[in-house]
């Protein structure tokens, strides 16, 4: 099998396209690169979707935590406390066991005029269940970051907005929110990096890899187990993640530049790595 044929056979193996059986013996470097790279599809899928959905919820949670109304503030505080205070690994297990206990036939929802059956079985699959966990988890971590940034929005900016007659939604959209994002962005970049790192936990924490379709680390540990040689597969997955991290930093750096485009270059906050956000 040439390397090109290997890529054809295994390049999309992680999403079920291509050869059905994984290689079992005489592993080549090409096979390892291809399969582990194919697994990265899942890491990117989980990371990107959780970030997008999480961003929206995080903004809501940050606003909730800053709210003067206790009925809104308390749930937001508890949400952040529980998800930031416990290990992601335990959250995966807990979510999986919960999803498994949901009735297999689905939940009947009686709307009075019609019956709806909410299917629940898909939640026990990694693609949905793990995504839900990662989404909630990143929402809590980013929510705390956004909340911190929200509290450090300069008073002068808000007073200026008042002076211009901006109120309510317009004030939030034009002044509060952009400033909050600008302040939170360096920390949020770290959160994004570590979220991508956290996606490697999915297939090691309860959620089974269906038909051996797993993420990069799943395949790496498959090879390491089969060849009993950790010095090839794990450096490959490490290399892929270094690349992914560089891509994330580049994209977030671009956004950071756009967020700060009105500032003099010297005043722009550069993104600095701070290891405070793995879970």
């Amino acid at each position, binding site marked *: 099998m040439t390397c090109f044929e290997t890529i054809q056979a295994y390049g999309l193996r992680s999403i079920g396209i291509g050869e059905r059986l994984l290689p079992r013996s005489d592993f080549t470097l090409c096979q390892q690169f291809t399969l582990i790279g194919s697994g990265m599809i899942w890491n990117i899928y989980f990371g990107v979707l959780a970030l997008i959905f999480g961003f929206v919820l995080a903004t809501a949670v940050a606003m909730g935590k800053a709210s003067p109304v206790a009925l809104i503030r308390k749930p937001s505080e508890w949400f952040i406390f529980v998800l930031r205070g416990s290990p992601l690994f335990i959250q995966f297990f807990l979510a999986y066991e919960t999803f498994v206990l949901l009735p297999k036939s689905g939940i009947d929802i009686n709307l009075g005029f019609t019956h709806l059956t909410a299917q629940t079985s898909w939640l026990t699959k990694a693609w949905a269940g793990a995504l839900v966990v990662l989404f909630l988890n990143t929402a809590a971590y980013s929510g705390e970051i956004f909340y911190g940034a929200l509290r450090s929005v300069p008073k002068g900016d808000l007073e200026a907005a008042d002076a211009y007659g901006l109120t309510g939604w317009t004030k939030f959209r034009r002044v509060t929110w952009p400033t909050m994002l600008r302040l939170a962005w360096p920390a949020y970049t770290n959160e994004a990096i570590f979220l991508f790192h956290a996606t490697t936990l999915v297939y090691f924490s309860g959620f089974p890899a269906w038909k051996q379709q797993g993420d990069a680390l799943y395949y790496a540990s498959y090879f390491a187990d089969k060849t*009993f040689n950790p010095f090839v597969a794990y450096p490959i997955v490490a290399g892929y*993640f270094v690349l992914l991290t560089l891509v994330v930093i580049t994209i977030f750096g671009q956004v950071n530049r756009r967020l700060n485009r009105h500032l003099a270059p010297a005043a722009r906050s550069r993104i600095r790595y701070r*290891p*405070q956000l793995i879970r």
Partner: protein
Amino acid sequence: MFESCADPSLLDGLPWLACYLTTGKHMAFYGSFLTVLALLAITAPFAMLFGFGGAMAARSDIAPLRWLGKTYTAMVRGVPDIVFFLFVPIAMDQGLEWLRHKVKCPDWDAPIRQGSDFVVCTAAKLPLSNAPQWAHEVYGFALAMIAFAIVFGAFAANVLSGAMTAVPVGQIETAAAYGMSKRQTFWRILVPQMWVYALPGLSNLWQILVKATPLLFLLGVEDIVYWARELGGAKTSTFSYPHPDWRLYYFLGLLVFYLSLTQVSDTVFQHLMRRLSHGQATLAGEAQRKATA
């Protein structure tokens, strides 16, 4: 455990639960909480040591040492920690066995890697194949600990080197003006002052370390996750304490355990920060001075 527990099938309600929660396996489960705490207690100082060494190396005047330090501090940036947790124990194991193999069996001529096997002579096996079960467990736990210390040492090196650069330059310059050597400046001026800058990062790191402890399960240690899965799984009537799938409740228990652990640590660190800020040239230290004056 108790005499009334001799025949659990006759019990129900609270007595049943009391007997159920005191079975031998549950005792092992409670013991595994101590495993977690032991891991924390042993790993934290080692990680600090590695971190301090890494931060010192990253500031070194000797170029290769500096590169080594910088690489060490940078390695956790791009690569998920779980990769290290999977990689380090098996790599350490094979590395040690290979070294022992070279020393103990010098006239062995077969290759060590034969296809998908890693073959060393019997005398080089770690632990020896005739070693008792506890030796295997201790060895596994020790490897896991080294993996934790290496990864968290890298994080700590990051925090500490940041803290070292955060100490005001004026302090270093003053030390130089007093004629202190580089070594003296480092130990008498830089190190005592850096802790207040390092503490926020270190407290974060501690919380991360606490939240990383369930990963012990991945390394094959019989930790709390292992027991929660083992005990929580549905038990048929062939068991003395049959019950349906209770894993959810066991994991809820673990959740509460970790929440209280992180919460308690948080309180302790806040207290420590107040103590450390005392008399420091920082905002918090200044506030304390004004409050008492």
